[in-house]
């Protein structure tokens, strides 16, 4: 990754240009803030609309923008263009790449040890389970978005299908988690194919919009099909998972009683932790394996150039469908886990926000990179919790962090692609060459 070192696009340095930029910024601020800050509306005592003006605050905001943009312009001229090398010194970058090689195994070992280290800290264990759920969702969506290059904005639909499949099968028929888990995956994959057939001929933005709509349709069906799904009340009393038939509870048949140790609520949490870890690692293993098979190569080729794929005799429709179904299946597994962990699900858990979050994880991680997605999930979910102490400024700090990462790593945290086959030596491919796909 080379930083732009040329100074050919140096901005005009004159005072006139400086003032011009500042005035334009101040005008934009005036337009933006005139309604948001300048006029304050409130419902009066009788419900009528009352409003008053706050021109003083408005003026000070505009003045702040005016002064601030002069300062920023001066700083920009003083520092020069901000490139990767300026923000992160090359020595540090080299160190980061060295760490990167050992990062994945180190992270895995640490993850395996989390329940041991933090055994008594319920909050951290819960957070770790949440992060792992999103790692799994990210890895699942990575197949669709990162490998096949199909922009899916409705991934939460498959998460919901998986969750409701398990919840309904378990509460209505009393089937065990281990029977329902594959069924939830299969049902989600089935829905993936069902959605895929009509929409996969669409490309790019059109595909994104239709998948977005599909996500909403599933949620609305869940809300309105009261007889089956319980509507907005959701499904409650979902059975907890068992360790191959042995429940993890206080009863005499429980695991604690059988092992002759004292019962603790943490046992179940630790069990859930390893369950989601196993599911996530299964997703990872399957994805890595699939990438090296013809189907995975065809997914990536599809992302690179769909027309060339057709010219090589690749059935693009079935290739897209398999990507969709595979991603949906992993989403379904994650959904079943979510249902068994929560014990209660309702349509509220499956809003567009979830889809957006998972997509952000995949994009931030570097499309197609397994390690990147895991790191991004950790940063997005864990980082968000980390800033909890900042209260109202949390979103601001979070936004700043995202902007900085995107300046430093415009193609995501892990910015290269590993080849799936090689003759002599596997060389990482810079993601500048890798396409994002066209839908």
């Amino acid at each position, binding site marked *: 990754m080379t930083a732009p070192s040329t100074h050919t696009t140096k901005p005009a340095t004159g005072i006139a240009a400086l003032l011009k930029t500042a005035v334009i910024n101040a005008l934009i601020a005036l337009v933006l803030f005139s309604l948001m800050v300048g006029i304050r509306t409130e419902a009066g005592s009788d419900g009528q609309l009352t409003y008053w003006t706050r021109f003083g605050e408005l003026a000070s905001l505009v003045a702040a923008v005016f002064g601030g943009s002069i300062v920023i312009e001066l700083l920009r001229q003083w520092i020069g263009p901000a490139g990767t090398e300026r923000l992160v010194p090359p020595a540090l970058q080299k160190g980061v790449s060295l760490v990167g090689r050992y990062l994945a195994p180190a992270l895995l070992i640490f993850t395996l040890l989390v329940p041991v280290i933090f055994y008594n800290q319920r909050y951290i264990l819960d957070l770790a389970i949440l992060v792992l759920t999103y790692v799994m969702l990210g890895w699942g969506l990575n197949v669709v978005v990162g490998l096949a290059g199909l922009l899916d904005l409705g991934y939460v639909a498959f998460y919901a299908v998986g969750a409701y499949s398990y919840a309904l099968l378990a509460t209505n028929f009393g089937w065990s988690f281990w029977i329902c888990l594959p069924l939830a995956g299969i049902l989600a994959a089935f829905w993936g194919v069902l959605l895929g057939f009509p929409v996969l001929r669409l490309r790019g933005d059109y595909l994104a919009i239709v998948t977005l709509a599909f996500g909403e349709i599933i949620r609305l069906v869940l809300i309105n099909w009261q007889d089956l799904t319980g509507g907005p009340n959701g499904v409650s009393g979902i059975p907890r998972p068992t360790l191959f038939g042995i429940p993890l509870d206080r009863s005499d048949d429980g695991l604690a009683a059988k092992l002759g140790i004292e019962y603790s609520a943490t046992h179940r949490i630790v069990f859930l932790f390893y369950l989601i870890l196993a599911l996530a690692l299964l997703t990872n293993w*399957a994805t890595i*394996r*699939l990438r090296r*098979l*013809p*189907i995975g*190569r*065809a997914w*990536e*080729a599809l*992302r*690179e*150039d769909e*027309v*060339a*794929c*057709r*010219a*090589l*005799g*690749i*059935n*693009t429709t079935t290739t897209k469908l*398999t990507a969709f179904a595979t991603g949906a299946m992993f989403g379904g597994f994650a959904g079943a886990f979510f249902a068994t962990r929560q014990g209660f699900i309702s349509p509220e858990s499956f809003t567009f926000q979830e889809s957006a979050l998972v997509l952000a994880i995949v994009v931030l991680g570097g499309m197609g990179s397994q390690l990147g997605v895991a790191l991004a999930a950790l940063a997005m979910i864990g980082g968000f919790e980390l800033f909890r102490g900042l209260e109202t400024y949390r979103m601001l700090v979070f936004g700043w962090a995202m902007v900085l990462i995107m300046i430093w790593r415009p193609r995501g945290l892990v910015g290269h*692609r590993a*080849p*799936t*086959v*090689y*003759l*002599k*030596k*596997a*060389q990482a*491919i*810079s*993601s500048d*060459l*890798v*396409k994002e796909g066209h839908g």
Partner: protein
Amino acid sequence: MSGDKILSVDRLTMRFGGIVAVQDLSFAAERKKITALIGPNGAGKTTVFNCITGFYKPTGGAIRLTHDDGKEIALQRLNDFRIAKQAKVARTFQNIRLFPGMTVLENLMVAQHNMLMRASGFTLLGLVGAPAYRDAEKRAIDLASDWLKRVNLLDRADDAAGNLAYGDQRRLEIARAMCTVPALLCLDEPAAGLNARESAALNELLLSIRNDLGTSILLIEHDMSVVMEISDHIVVMDHGVKIAQGTPREVRDDPKVIAAYLGTDEEEAVAVMESGS
């Protein structure tokens, strides 16, 4: 024209709304020969190509492909990927279409997708790592290396295709098309953008594909030095209709071709045509 025809195009017509791009075009390509389709810009050559390779559905007419074993396939009835998969017609593109973010070797592996898919038991056998699939993958890598040797890209096998120089990308695209083991290879302006040396190397490559492997080639080309030197048969198009056909010599001397191809200024036209011989 006599001989064994691999491809015969019969009264092919392609309309886009009110525009007739190709009208009543009939020609044939012989087996194990190089047939060139030439004509001025906008003559409809690429449209014919897109009809043959299934990217367009012809408005009328028939395109018949005859395999070595005598099996006949009506290409106008097959669509997109099936033409490459079942009829074994491979093609390259006027503006190169590689998979730039994948390595050179991966590009050639994707070309063998259908063979590898069958070998991997449609992924299931491959997922459990069956030895049969591993053997098939090894054979696929061997075929790919073989082609890399032919196009002189073996030491670039593990580089990203997008990092190759333009001429190398052109050759890689031909190698990728050949990795599908086609019966008919369709090349859309393979010499476009190549310098004289690369162009000569291309001639050699195409001749070796014809002579050593016996693959029939149909090509569109502007570069007369390529067309005149390696073509066995030339079809000349203008404004969507065929205006002449024959051997390079016959075509070069045809006044209709000279007039259509390079305007009515015959002196200049003859000069350009001669330069290619």
